[in-house]
């Protein structure tokens, strides 16, 4: 009997109906549903408590989980047929998929009360990014739970050691920072505390391995690698914005920098679109939380200004993009928020002017094309070696941007956030879908 696996028999996910929590719940449901077919556990009872604040939210969660588990089952039908080989009456793929979905959904026990967590051995947490709220909840569970549960926090910015000390968890907590959406994103940042329980570390690595996730160890410094990089990337973009804005004005400056970081750095989206995707409010909140623990201060007057105007970005519950720096139609940028008129104006003509201003001659493949290409590395090499030779404003700004990102990656290592710049590269490639890491030889 595997001691670590025993802990999966009763799990709680706090904040299960939230954006991150629902994904973490899904991963646990799939993990436990698969575990039920492990020879040591056939016929045993597994529980996954889905804890959140209202039944309305939990009801919606049911649909999401059913849809996602079904998709997983369809994709993994070859494995499932083997797993259900001992059930003679399950013959068609559909029989097997339906049974798996039913069994997986049966694991979930929704609740708006905290008491079910008192019997859990693993507590996954994905609630509000607030030190006091998290530690109060952890302590309450720990004090009432005789099983000495392990806590896995999805915090993206609060040091784990702070949560450990304040909730008196005696090292039974680890940072397990999933990326959105957790079920799809391969990356998990793992943050161990100095005197953390080694069994917990082992358990997390086993979980990640079983769920085919890529783990990157990060040191326990606020923001860790992912947000440590992103927040400073945002501030670099803002610095360029401040330099360019007096000549170009707000709209063209935003579009120029967004275009450079999108098309010339060949990222899935430009930096300001990424801020919209994450949410302007979320970004400023993360900076605020990080500032609480860090010596250097991360402040974005630009984001704060937009927030003061009620421009927040982020996503609608159905996953569609809310307007932020940009206005969107079916995911595409169609407008930009004009600070003077305080309304969105079309980007059509502006983009023409921006392209003319940047005047880049080297032709680039799009991120989408290269993300599907087996020859991406060669194309990137060719593109950047040409871009670096160009004298256009766009090429020079892009190369400067890349240099700054490389410095940023190196600085994260120097600051002790990670032990290797390769970890930074892994996070940016897997968590942000960059085609190459910031610490590279292109520049």
């Amino acid at each position, binding site marked *: 009997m595997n001691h670590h696996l025993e802990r999966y028999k009763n799990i709680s996910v706090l904040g299960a109906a939230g954006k991150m929590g629902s994904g973490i719940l899904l991963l646990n449901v799939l993990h436990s549903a698969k575990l039920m077919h492990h020879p040591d556990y056939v016929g045993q009872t597994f529980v996954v408590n889905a804890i959140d604040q209202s039944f309305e939210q939990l009801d919606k969660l049911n649909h999401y989980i059913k849809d996602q588990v079904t998709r997983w089952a*369809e994709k993994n*039908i*070859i494995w499932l*047929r083997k797993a259900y080989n001992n059930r003679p009456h399950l013959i*068609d*793929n559909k029989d097997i998929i339906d049974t798996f979905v039913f069994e997986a959904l049966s694991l979930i026990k929704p609740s708006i009360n905290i008491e079910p967590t008192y019997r859990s051995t693993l507590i996954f947490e994905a609630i509000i990014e607030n030190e006091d709220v998290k530690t109060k909840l952890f302590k309450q569970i720990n004090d009432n739970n005789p099983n000495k549960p392990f806590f896995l926090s999805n915090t993206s910015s609060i040091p784990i050691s702070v949560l450990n000390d304040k909730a008196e968890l005696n090292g039974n907590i680890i940072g397990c920072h999933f990326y959105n959406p957790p079920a799809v994103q391969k990356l998990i940042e793992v943050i161990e505390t100095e005197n953390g329980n080694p069994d917990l570390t082992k358990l997390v690595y086993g979980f990640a391995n079983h769920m085919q996730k890529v783990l990157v160890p990060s040191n326990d410094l606020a923001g860790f690698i992912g947000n440590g990089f992103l927040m400073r990337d945002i501030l670099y973009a803002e610095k360029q914005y401040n330099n360019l804005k007096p000549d170009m004005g707000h709209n063209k400056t935003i579009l120029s920098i967004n275009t450079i970081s999108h098309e010339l750095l060949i990222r899935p989206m430009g930096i300001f679109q990424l801020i919209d995707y994450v949410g302007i409010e979320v970004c400023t909140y993360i900076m605020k939380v990080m500032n609480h623990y860090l010596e250097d201060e991360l402040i974005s007057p630009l984001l704060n200004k937009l927030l003061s105007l009620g421009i927040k970005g982020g996503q609608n519950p159905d996953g569609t993009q809310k307007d932020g720096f940009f206005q969107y139609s079916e995911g595409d940028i169609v407008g930009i928020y004009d600070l003077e008129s305080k309304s969105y104006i079309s980007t059509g003509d502006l983009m023409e002017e921006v392209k003319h201003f940047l005047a880049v001659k080297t032709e680039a493949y799009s991120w989408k094309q290269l993300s599907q290409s087996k020859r991406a590395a060669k194309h990137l090499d060719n593109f950047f070696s040409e871009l670096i030779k160009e004298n256009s404003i766009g090429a020079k700004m892009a190369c400067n941007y890349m240099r700054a990102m490389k410095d940023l990656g190196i600085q994260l290592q120097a600051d002790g956030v990670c032990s290797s710049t390769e970890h930074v590269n892994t996070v940016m490639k897997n968590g942000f879908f960059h085609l190459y890491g910031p610490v590279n030889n292109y520049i």
Partner: protein
Amino acid sequence: MQRRIFLVAGYNTIALGTGRKEFHPKKERPGIEYYMQEAGRATLKKIGGAGNVDESVVGNFMASRFNNQAHLGAFIPSIDKKLQYKPAMRVEGACASGGLAMISGIKSILAGTADVVLAIGVEVQNTVKAMYGADHLALAGYYKNRKNGHAYFFPGEFSDRAGSYSKTYGDDYARKGMATWYANCIQNARLCETAQEHHNDSEHLFDTGMEAPNAELFVDNLNYADCSKVSDGASSIAIVSEKGLKRVGLPLSEAVELVGFSQVEENIMEPPIDECELSTTKNAVSKVLEMAQITKDELATVETHDCFTIAGVLATEAIGFAAKGKGAQFVADGHTSREGSIPFNTTGGLIGWGHPTGATGVHQAVTIWEQLTHQAGRAQISIPEHKPYGLTVNMGGNDKTVVCMVLKKTTG
């Protein structure tokens, strides 16, 4: 044969599915009745209208599962009001359903109960995701074998054949034959506007065909390029007697003559006699050539049932173009390409044109009719004077039902 039989007025809808630019899995698509009507009406238009038709037959495998619709014979009057209260029926023999529709029409002509038969084959399969479609298609095998079969049942069955062939004759040897088969099919499909792979402009066809199978994602011995795709489509053609030909008012030059047919069955409850041989196909081909009183060397072209590339390779052996175990070499050497000694599947076959399962047998007849009457457009091949024949091989299940026809170019 006691009566002369001709085929005229063939028609194919497009084979719709992944690869066609019109296809979007989340957008609404035409239903099965649309395909039957499009194909049927096109043939009727060429033969002077439905008033000339004595009876109709539709070949379909699995509408009852893919479309929740049985009783397709009763859809025939929806094609044209003049088909109301005339005989029509649906026949089924898995992927050989279209071939059986042809056989059914042929027998009506031979029996003298009809002089003009409208034969349609139809299948609409993109209604479900692939893993559920696999359940439906698996019914072409013995259901008691389903439990222990692969999730993708028929790819699994033919993967076993490819595995045996590779093990016996060499992995790389077999793979090169299969990859060449795939490349030929796509190149041919590019020349046919209705083909599912018509828009495939890959420059790396052979490399794609050579990709190693991934058993974790699919089956042990086939890659995705080895498999025909999921298709929606219909084909139709008129089967007529001499009297019927006069009635529809078409010249002999627009007809091909049926000079031989065979239809054989092997016991579905038993495994293949030899995984490296299409025994039933071999038997059916032998019978059809004997009936037509020709040798394989008089064939100008063949439409064979390449539901998987290995089935194409094995068909070259079953027909006798290559000795046992030499089919992969025969294909790799280019003999089956459109410029080769015996062009196979000149509009792409099942791999390239598409495989709307119940329509395939009729589609094959339409393709040979097009080639022998010089109506194949850009896909037209040369038909030598001394080789006026074309052969169809339509297979149901894992070589369990096979229908063959030999068609002859008409003179005069």
